[in-house]
Structures are given as C-alpha cells and as structure tokens.
C-alpha cells in the first residue's frame, strides 16, 4: 500500500475500533450518549472506508474483488453498511458493537495479507463473479446482523435488573422500564428472524450463481470443493435456524445462541477452509 492509502486504512480501522469501544462503554456504564455518539463514529468510519474502496477501484481498474485484501475491504464495507442500516432503522445503535467486530477482524486480517494490486485474471472475468460476490456479501452481512442482534439480546436479557431503553430515561424497576425492555427484546427477536431470512435467501442465490459460474469456468456445477461444501453446510445451518424458529417456535435466547454459533460457519466458509486445506480450486487469491 502507498503511505497515504495505508494511513487512510489504519484511520478507518481505528475509527471502527473506537466506535465499538465507545458503544460498549455506553452499554456497560449506562451512558446512552456515548452509544449514540459512537454510531456517528461508525458513519464516519464508513465514509473513510468508502473512500478506500473507491481509491482501490481507481488504482486497479476493477471492482476490488481479487485476493484476500480486496475481498476483506469490500466484504467489511458491506457488513458495516448493512449493520448501520439495520441498527439505525431498528433503533439499535448497540447492534454495531455486536456485529462490527467481525468487520474489524476481517479488515485487519486483510491488511496483513499481500496488498499489491493484481490485474483481473481470466478466471475472474465473468459476469457471474459480480452476482456471486454481491449476494455472498449481502448474505454474510445479514448473518452478521443476525448474530449482532443475538449478542445484544443475550446482553440485555442478562441485565434484567437494569433495563435500558434507547433513551435510558426510565429506571428498570418501573413498569415503563419493563415495557421498554420487553419492546426492545421483541424488536431484537424480529430483527434476528428478518436478518436470518434475508441472509438465507441471498445465500441461496449466491450458491446458485456460483454453481452456474463453476460450470462455465471448471465444466462442472458442483465439484465438492471444500469451500463449496462448507458454504452449503453454512446454508443448511441457517436453514435449520429458520426451521427451529418457524416450526418449533424457538425465539429469544435460544434463537440468539443458535445465530451466534451459526456465524462461525460463515467465517470458516470464507477464511477457515482455505487456511486449513490447501488445494481448493475455490481460491480468492491469484497466487
């Protein structure tokens, strides 16, 4: 990376980290203003992040989708964007604290890899690449939101003595406080379900698009490649979560734990498999 680019990159990372820390501080020490201010920090970080993505695009001449660094850059951008939208819309600033650490880890990991720009190699010159990656990142971002909502749900239900509304005005033991807590838990529960549903649908499209692309690139719709198989496993896990919710009425803490555990399959799908298994045809690097 050039020095100015590296500076912008680290500013973005630090910005996100400070925002997360501020939100956690606000939650733990009951300082709702710190939480709300942190949300603006995330917005600012996203602005810097967008500049990073645009800069990289300009330098390479293609959408940054090649290699660990570019995938981390764009993937983390999607996660932050979707988390910000979901948190803002559903009035859950704390959602960022539950979900953004994933984006931070992804960005940090990407920054440690080879950042040299690469030309768009022949195997990646396909319309299906963009469909596949777009829906992949939408799915992963949605799953991250679901996980983040689960984390917040679990944190809030542990603090039943100290119910917190978003405005933090009503004390926990008041009926108003209890109503506010119940309302926020219900919204979180619905957010978990919505995000999982959205992720499941976009994940299905991602797998289908990848399969069609694989036919053109490798001559086979499905090759039982480790990354392919793991992405199917991850999709099945979220399918299981949806079954548990819709037919066995798993809600609240039970669903939250399922979604927090399930996000691990997503992380492994993208990073773990290629770290552990060499020889996968599904490589994100061109080395």
């Amino acid at each position, binding site marked *: 990376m050039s020095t100015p680019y590296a500076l912008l990159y680290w500013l973005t990372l630090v910005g996100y980290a400070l925002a997360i820390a501020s939100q956690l501080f606000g939650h733990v020490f009951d300082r709702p203003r710190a939480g709300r201010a942190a949300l603006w920090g995330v917005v600012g970080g996203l602005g810097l992040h967008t500049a990073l993505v645009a800069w990289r695009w300009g330098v390479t001449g293609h959408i940054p989708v090649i290699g660990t660094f570019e995938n981390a850059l764009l993937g983390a951008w999607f996660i932050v964007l979707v988390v910000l939208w979901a948190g803002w819309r559903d009035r859950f600033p704390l959602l960022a604290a539950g979900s953004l650490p994933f984006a931070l880890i992804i960005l940090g990991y990407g920054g440690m890899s080879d950042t040299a720009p690469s030309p768009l190699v022949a*195997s990646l010159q396909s319309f299906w690449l963009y469909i596949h990656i777009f829906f992949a990142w939408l799915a992963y971002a949605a799953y991250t939101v679901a996980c983040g909502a689960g984390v917040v749900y679990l944190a809030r239900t542990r603090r039943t003595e100290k119910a917190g509304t978003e405005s933090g005005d009503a004390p926990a033991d008041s009926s108003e406080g209890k109503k506010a807590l119940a309302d926020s838990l219900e919204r979180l529960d619905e957010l978990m379900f919505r995000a999982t549903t959205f992720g499941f649908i976009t994940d299905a499209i991602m797998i289908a698009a990848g399969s069609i692309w694989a036919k053109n690139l490798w001559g*086979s719709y499905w090759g039982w490649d480790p990354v392919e*198989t793991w992405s199917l*496993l991850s999709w099945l896990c979220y399918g299981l979560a949806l079954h548990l919710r819709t037919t066995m009425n798993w809600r609240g803490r039970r669903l939250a734990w399922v979604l927090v555990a399930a996000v691990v399959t997503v992380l492994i799908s993208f990073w773990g*498999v290629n770290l552990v298994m060499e020889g996968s*045809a599904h490589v994100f690097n061109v080395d």
Partner: protein
Amino acid sequence: MRRLWSILTSTRTTVVVLIALSALLLLNVVIPQDTDNFRAAHDALLARSPLARFVLVTLGLGHMPTSPIFLGVLALFFVNLAAVLEDRTQSTVARLRLRLPDDVKLAAWMEKGEGLRVTWPAGLDEDRPRQVLEQLGYRVHAPGPRQLWAVKNRLAILGFPLFHLSFFVLCAGGMLLFYTRFTGSLTLTEGQHAAGTFAGRVQPPLVGRIPSVGLTLDKVDAVFERGQPVQLRATVRLDDDPRATPRQSSINHPVTWKQHTLLVEKAGLSAVLWLKDSQGHTLDRMAAPVPNAGETSVVPLDAGRLGAALRPVALKDLGGRTALTTTEITLSLLHGDRAIVEGRLRPGQSLRAAEHELTLVELRYWAGLRLVSERGGGWLIAGFVLAVVGIVWRMLWYRREVGVIWDGQALHLAGRCEFFPRAFHAELTAISDLIVDGNRGRA
C-alpha cells in the same frame, strides 16, 4: 405404521436429518477426499492404518458423494421431505382460504389476534373499510353486516411446497449429471485435428457411451498482464458443424453445443520438429508440446528409436505471437537416456549429430482442452430458480388476515400474520389511519 408416519413427518426428524447432513458435509471438508486436488493426502491417510481404510473405503467417507452413509442420510432427507409435503397438503390447501371457516365467528376470531379500537368518525362512508383494504391488495369478504374479513398474499403458502419440491428437481438434475457425465482431456497444437480420441485424462460416463467428438484447433491466444494470465482463447472448428464455423472457447466462455462443453484450460509453446537422417530423408515430423514449467518433457521420435527432450519455457515470459519467430528453446536429441546433441534453437535452426539432424521448423501454440458432456444441467438450473422463487414468495410475501367490525360508533380492527408481528402491528395501525383519516401513509 401410524407411529412411523408420525416420526417421518415430525419436525424433529427434519432437524435431526439436517444436523446429520451438516455433520457429513463437515467430514467431507475435514477428511481428505479421493479427488484430483486431494488425492495425495487421501492416499497418504489411507496407507496409515486399517482404521483409516475402514473409514475412507469401507464407510466411503473418502469419497462422500458415493458414500453409503451419505447416500443413506440423503435418502432419509428426501423421504422426510416427501412425507412432510404430503402431510401438509391439506393444511396448505386450507390456508389458501379466502373466507373464515364456517364454524368460526368473526368476533371470536378477532379476540385472538392483534387488535385496535378507534372511534368511528361521524359521516364516514360505510364502504370505506372495504375500499381501503382492496386498495392495499387485500381480498375482502363480508361474513355479515358491518363486518369484513380480508386476506392478503393468500397464495404465499404455496412458496413452501415450491421451495421444498425444488430439492427433488435439484436431486433429479444432480443424478442425471452424475450418471451421464463424461470428461476427457486433450492437447492439440494449432492446426491439429482430433477425432474422438482423448490422450489425456478420461472419465467415462456411468451410463452411456463416450461421445464421439471431432475438432480442429485453429488458433490459440494467450494474454498476460504483469505475469498474470488475463485471457486464454482457443479457436476451434467442430466436425459436427457442416459450415465449420470457427468458434472461440475462452476462460469463462467455453464452446457449448448439444450436451457438450469444450473448455480451454492451459496453453504453451509447441515445437514443430523435423528429424532427418544423414542423407536428408525424413524420419519423423511432429509437433511436440513444450512444458510451461516443471520437468523436461521427452517425446519419442522415429517410432521410439530416438527422443527429443524439451526444457520448459514459461508462456508468460514471451512477448506474444510476434515473438515466436525469435524465441529460443532448449532441445536435446536422445538415444535412450543419452543425449546425442543438445542446444538452444530458434525456428529454422537445427541440431546436427553424426547421423541425424533435428530441425525446429517453427513454434506454434498448444492448447490443453477439456471436453465435458453431461445431461441434467437444465434440471439443476430449474431447481435453483424454483428454490429462490419459493423461498422469496414464502418468506417475503407472507399471508396476512384482517378482520374489521364497526357499529357506527367504534371501529374494531384485528388481524394475524405469519411472520414479523411488529411490522404487522404497524400495518394495522396504518390501515386504521387510512380508514379513519384518509391518510396516504403506506401500510
């Protein structure tokens, strides 16, 4: 039988089967599989112990798609799926209803769902609730005077069988692909013709015959940028095509016709060699592929009496087609394992030994092609489409039911939805506002 049916249609069975499938997919990743990319690791594990042999071969976990355990769990998955679909047919049809069941009173129904009560504005048109509901896309039915029961997206429940039936379509496509799949590799030099023979790896179909495909390789284009392959194209003419129209196969854009797909996978230099004896009689002429990397390649000459060893030349290091006339390659003329003569040649130059002369006539490109023939791709794609349409339909256009009762002084709204109750509460409030205030907010 009833108990068996109850188990087969139980959601717990579904959960158990999904967990079992997930566990097997996990094993597929963790255990080295008997595939091209992981065969070495698989064979190394196999050689370790009888237990490894038992796991990999007897249980079949070394090749998951054909493992009896995996196939058994998959079969159970489809049996469970079929049983659940059959079991839910009646309830699915019932949920398509436009009206309340005959034995259910609207007032009693409304007590069970989300409810709102507002004052009926004086002078409000009594047809206003129906108008608003119909504008919002509800199908409305009046079970009695000053009563309405409305349903929206009543067909959304059909997304459930559609999504789940797609798995059968996907399975059918997958089985067709598995049983009819043929792959064969061949390496051709520009100008060469292949008539249904595959010198490289061949995987015959489990059902059917090896396809007879003839083609001529006209031209190869390989483009590099900063040492990275940014494009590889092979122009071919198919024997199947009476007009012999040139067709181009490139990375991500293979040539497809009937059930065949021709992919271009690699390319390199090809040395056109001419072997003569000391009197100038031609002993052999051939095009010998020069490897891009790795070991020196040895090709037989003169029916195996002699050989030519070609050292690798990386295609990415050359300057394109224009450089072929000036590119040098390192050649050795062999007798058995012994090199008779060795040297670096450009096109037109020769190696001379006592009784032989080996001339590098010209350099061309070779292309590594792979032919894949299979049926069932259409079923697979149809399955994908059905799955996506079904799940979107089911989860996003979910069914909502609204009941309205008024008596000229108060308006009572209540309703139910399948998913997202908070959003539905907001929708009910918006409906109420539209009826009473004529607001144009979206419900």
